């Protein structure tokens, strides 16, 4: 058993030298960066529970995407972020207006470590229903690593990222910038060629 332990330690050391980490930078992914694909479960608003997995690469960044789109708007929100909730109806109207022209909107929930998932999910469902959101809203039960990867370690909200069909970030609106809905629509129109 001693021999096994020694080999285990050696294997562990060897393994750790070849690791790669995904520590978020302070500002997160920025304009010009390629997306880091992930999958999260969407909310089944009618049934009030989690549904199947939705991947970014289902829409953009892959030649054989399941449902290819010209543009993907990736939005991040938190239940306690009033401006985030305020822009939900605006995003819904943009989605309704351009979805047939190749626009997809995905909203990702962000929660801090102190927020319990079940309570957060229940509250998010209430907000989504209230604001009449129909585009997919994604949740991660286990971690917020992807949120931090995109938002950055400071996690400034609201945040709206526009991604082209090749999976490249063409605009990132964060904080006050995300209130400039006129500019956002301009980028969308240009992106889908409307």
């Amino acid at each position, binding site marked *: 058993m001693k021999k096994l332990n020694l080999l*285990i330690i050696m294997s562990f050391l*060897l*393994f750790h030298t070849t690791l790669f980490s995904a520590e978020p930078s302070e500002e997160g992914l920025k304009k010009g960066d390629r997306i880091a694909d*992930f999958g999260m479960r969407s909310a089944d608003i009618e049934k009030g529970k989690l549904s199947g997995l939705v991947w970014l690469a289902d829409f953009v960044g892959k030649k054989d995407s399941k449902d290819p789109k010209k543009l993907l708007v990736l939005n991040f929100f938190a239940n306690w972020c009033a401006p985030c909730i305020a822009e939900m109806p605006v995003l819904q109207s943009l989605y309704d207006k351009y979805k047939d022209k190749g626009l997809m909107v995905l909203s990702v929930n962000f929660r801090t470590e102190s927020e319990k998932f*079940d309570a957060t999910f229940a509250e998010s469902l209430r907000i989504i229903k209230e604001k009449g959101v129909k585009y997919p809203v994604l949740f991660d*039960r286990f*971690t917020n*690593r992807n949120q931090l990867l995109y938002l950055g370690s400071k996690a400034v909200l609201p945040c709206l990222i526009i991604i082209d069909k090749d999976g490249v970030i063409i605009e990132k609106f964060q904080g006050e910038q995300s209130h400039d809905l006129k500019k956002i629509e301009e980028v969308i129109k240009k992106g889908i060629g409307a």
Partner: protein
Amino acid sequence: MKVFIFSVCALFFCSVLYSEEKTPPAQNKVQKLLVEKVEAAGVEAALAKSLEEALVLDIGKRENTSVVTSAEMQNVVKTAQLKSEMSCEGSDECLVEVQKKLSVETLISGKVTKLGDEYIFSINTINVTTKTVGERISIQGRDLNDLKGKIKEAVDVLLGVSKPKQMFKLKDGEELKLAVMPLTARGMEQTTADSLTSILSAQLNQIKGISVISQDDIKAMLSKAALDSSAECSDSMECVVEIGASLGLSKLVTGAVGKVKDTFVISVQLIDVRNADVVNRVLESYTGDDSELQNAIKLAAYQLAGIDYQSLTGEVDFSFNVKKGTVHFGDDEKKFDKPQYSAAGLIPGRYFLKVRAEDDDYLPLQTDVYVAPGAKNVRTINVLSRPTPWYKSWWFWTLTSVVVLGAAGTVTAVVLTQDTPDGSGTVTIE
């Protein structure tokens, strides 16, 4: 002209005759197999019996095979009192003699055990003539019916009718980023399972084209703080897939390691995260020392990635605690007069090791050992000494001596302390 035609006809006739002699009519050789009693390791004996019956039924239905059951063999042994007739020393030798007498060419032995909620049924063939282990296969199932449904395919592989189905194969130039979820421990300490998870991760990471995500990342995700949802995440495919998706992985590895009695089982699966589907499954089970787990898991890594490891030969270097004897390793059998056995150029896999000391004070040792791809298995094999019979033990002889001496002392004391006649009385002299 007539002579010429006659000669040509004669030549043709002879050639036809000759060719007929050269190619005798095809004969379907019937292979006689003996299905041994399926061993139940930590599971109900009835389940093992049912699997044995299913094996017999499946083999019996096949053309060119004839099956002898363990019950039939035992009957032969009883009625003919073969053991004394054949004057065989140990049960192994006797078994082989019985099989020879029954003209059995191949022995099929099986063992069924349980790992978590799943049953693992391992079957292997033994060539009676060469006494070597042939094909081995393990099947996994939720219940008896699930296992029974997989027996046909397993027997096909065992008898060489078909090759084992390879579900996943890492293509040349393919890049695969995956995570190895912590292996679940069954009947052993979680720390051992964690160590094996690290070995599996390291081994997979060494395979060209595969990069394995940090264990720390996964552990952080599986921490209690993260698992605040009412949904527990243990073995559930849904949870595992969700974690993989969150890590942006297309594939991940899950599994369990367990110990039931003296049998170790490793069960690992490669899961396609996007399709929530098992794309490859590896089962390794063996009877032997826990130190072989590391070699077994290394082998499992290659099998899981669908890498051809046959050319990555390995070595063994065993030392024994007995000076002289016979060692039987794989197909190799040799006597040794130095307590060491080495072999190189071995195809990776599981091997059967048997050591018989020349000194009768030692028990014969039988164990499974692994040769991992490109690795050297260095071990000290401890051959157990035969327990001393009670009549040879020191305490028996001490006790016997005490009893004998005590008895002798008592008799002497009695004799000495007896009243001697004082000389009075009547003596009649005739």
